[in-house]
């Protein structure tokens, strides 16, 4: 450590303020003040300009808000328009939470980066200012340029006067500051020994549990061994032929034979009428039109934007005469690039969509 600087050590912040006032009044140049905790009004006292960090935060936050807004607008109206629960593509209220998060994220990251840039810091860089560990403990340090000649004697005189005035003999000028308390340093290896002594090699013994609370359930675990019948797990296979409530079984498997068989045998339980066709149309507009288009002409928005290859048109030769069973089968299990829709549409709903698709076939 060079002797460029001098340190004056204080024991509390009230004395520190007096000291700063005195030094500034006598035209000493204070380099820095180091304190164990943020002291209100200190930056004002040593004549620092207000920080620019809030401005950076505002600008970054505004950029974040605009990014969030325009990105979502672009995605949901232009790039990949999707229907969510019948909402318009440009659903502004649902953008707000994301805009908010983007604002916070950009603002926080911007401020951190601006701070690092301003203090010329990056990970693993040594701190350029001197480390004065006692200021992380209980002492307040003013760091100032070491004055020369007469001014040095003046400084010593001032500090001595301050000692008497504040009745505080602990105020001291120091060129080099003691770092660690040796007694505490001696405790460090002891702490390490204690930590390592708790490690064990025996993996069978998991150690002690501190407040296990509700770790162990009284009920049986789903896949644990059955205490009544050791060979089986707690989970039981349902009886053969049982189905979930309000589930309509569909007997044809997801194979080519199943597809052909469904085309021959499957009969729509709903008879065609305007109400069902209308409901089918609504479902079609929610789930199918993005690829198939309003009239099944394979001109949906995703096809036109070339996000998906076009499916065969309903007026094409293959699909024009497609029987109800094959349509139902395709909706249930999917076909080619089209995914299965059984998890999104119930049996009844699929039947309604089939009716609507058939009405399109007839119209064309």
């Amino acid at each position: 450590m060079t002797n460029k600087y001098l340190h004056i050590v204080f024991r509390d912040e009230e004395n520190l303020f007096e000291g700063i006032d005195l030094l500034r009044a006598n035209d000493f140049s204070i380099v820095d003040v180091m304190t164990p905790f943020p002291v209100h009004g200190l930056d004002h006292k040593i004549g620092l300009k207000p920080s620019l960090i809030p401005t950076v935060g505002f600008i970054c936050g505004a950029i974040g808000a605009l990014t969030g807004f325009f990105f979502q607008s672009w995605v949901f109206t232009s790039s990949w328009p999707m229907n969510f629960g019948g909402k318009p593509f440009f659903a502004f209220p649902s953008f707000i939470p994301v805009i908010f998060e983007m604002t916070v994220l950009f603002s926080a990251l911007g401020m951190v980066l601006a701070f690092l840039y301003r203090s010329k810091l990056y990970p693993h860089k040594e701190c350029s200012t001197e480390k004065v560990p006692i200021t992380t403990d209980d002492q307040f340090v003013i760091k100032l340029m070491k004055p020369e000649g007469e001014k040095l004697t003046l400084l010593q005189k001032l500090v001595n006067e301050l000692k008497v005035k504040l009745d505080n003999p602990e105020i001291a000028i120091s060129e080099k500051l003691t770092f660690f308390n040796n007694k505490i340093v001696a405790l460090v290896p002891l702490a390490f020994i204690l930590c390592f002594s708790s490690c064990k090699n025996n993996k069978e013994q998991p150690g002690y549990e501190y407040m296990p609370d509700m770790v162990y359930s009284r009920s049986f675990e789903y896949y644990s061994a059955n205490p009544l019948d050791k060979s089986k797990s707690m989970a039981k296979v349902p009886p053969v032929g049982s189905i979930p409530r309000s589930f309509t079984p569909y007997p044809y498997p997801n194979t080519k034979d199943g597809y052909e068989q469904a085309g021959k045998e499957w009969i729509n339980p709903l008879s065609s009428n305007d109400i069902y066709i209308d409901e089918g149309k609504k479902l079609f507009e929610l789930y199918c039109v993005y690829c198939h288009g309003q009239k099944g002409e394979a001109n949906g928005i995703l096809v036109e934007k070339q996000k998906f290859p076009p499916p065969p048109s309903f007026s094409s030769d293959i699909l024009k005469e497609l029987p109800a069973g094959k349509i139902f089968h395709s909706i249930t299990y999917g076909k080619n690039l089209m995914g299965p829709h059984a998890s999104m549409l119930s049996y009844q709903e699929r039947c309604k969509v089939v009716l609507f698709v058939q009405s399109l076939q007839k119209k064309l």
Partner: protein
Amino acid sequence: MGAGLLLVFLGLITNHEKFWSSWLLNGFYFTLIALSGTVFISIHTLANSGWHTAISKIPEAIIKFLPISAVIMLLLLLGTGNLYHWTHVEEGDTILLGKTSWLNLPFFIIRMILYFGLWIFFSYKLINISLKEEEEGGLEHHRNRIRYSAIFIVLFAITSSMASWDWIMSLDPHWYSTLFGWYIFSGLLVSGIAVITVLVIYLFKNGFMPWINENHFHDLGKYLFGFSIFWTYLWFSQFLLIWYSNIPEETVYYAPRMDNYPVLFYLILVLNFAIPFLVLMTRDAKRNIKYLVISCGSIIIGHWLNLYLLIAPSVFHEHVTIGFSEIGMALCFGGLFMFVVFRSLSGKILLPKNHPFLEETFHYTS
């Protein structure tokens, strides 16, 4: 105030529903503001705050309006038939019939008396404690204040949300929102603090409070800024869920508000969120009286309009403009409010003399 009174009577003769809805609007608005004084004191007491002692006489003065607003709200009972649909349930309305154990007139009256009884009891207890403290000194009074504040805060959390269900949410008895109590509470806090800030600024400008400095204004500004965002957060939380789920029995609340009052609906967001948010964003603005007055005015008007938008569309089924009845009554009650507050402030030193944290407020930096 006199002109307001005249307009009020004019209103009573011409249109009953309009009269009672504006009675509810203004009565409830000034109840909220009066109550915010008690909340202000008890929150700061419990947080061991010192800075607020410089202005704590002002919330105490605001509280003095609470008994008057109790009378105003009790007079509202004469008009329940015109306002509350649940007072005459039709046959076959199973939802309302299911709610009759809560929404019936005797229980409604009992609850109203109970709320005001509790609020007035605790409010006056806190005022009396501070008067006694001024005379006698000692720490015992402050300990008492902490005790009563703690009990009040808990009771207030329950009663304020129940009162907002009873008086405002039950205007639309088929609809409900679990957020409603907090939504009203956030409005109470922010409009109350706006009124306190305006009063502090007025008294400071006229030299009655020379000990106030910009650090105190900074804190009031932070409150205004923070709680106006909090109010918007709750407003939006309620709106977004209803808008997104789009279930008819919930959207029935927002549909008339957005369709019949398109300007007002967005205006309240501008007044209660955009203006305070943009005006008070920087640190210097929060310490500047001019900016504080702008945002306080915006919030005070904005929350009055917000309350109008909560009440009017539920009472009338078509669009109704804000008329003489509402504004007249606001002037009338506002005048009464000012009269009560300034009468209790006049001729006193506006400092709690023996408050244990009083010294702290003079050395306060923020």
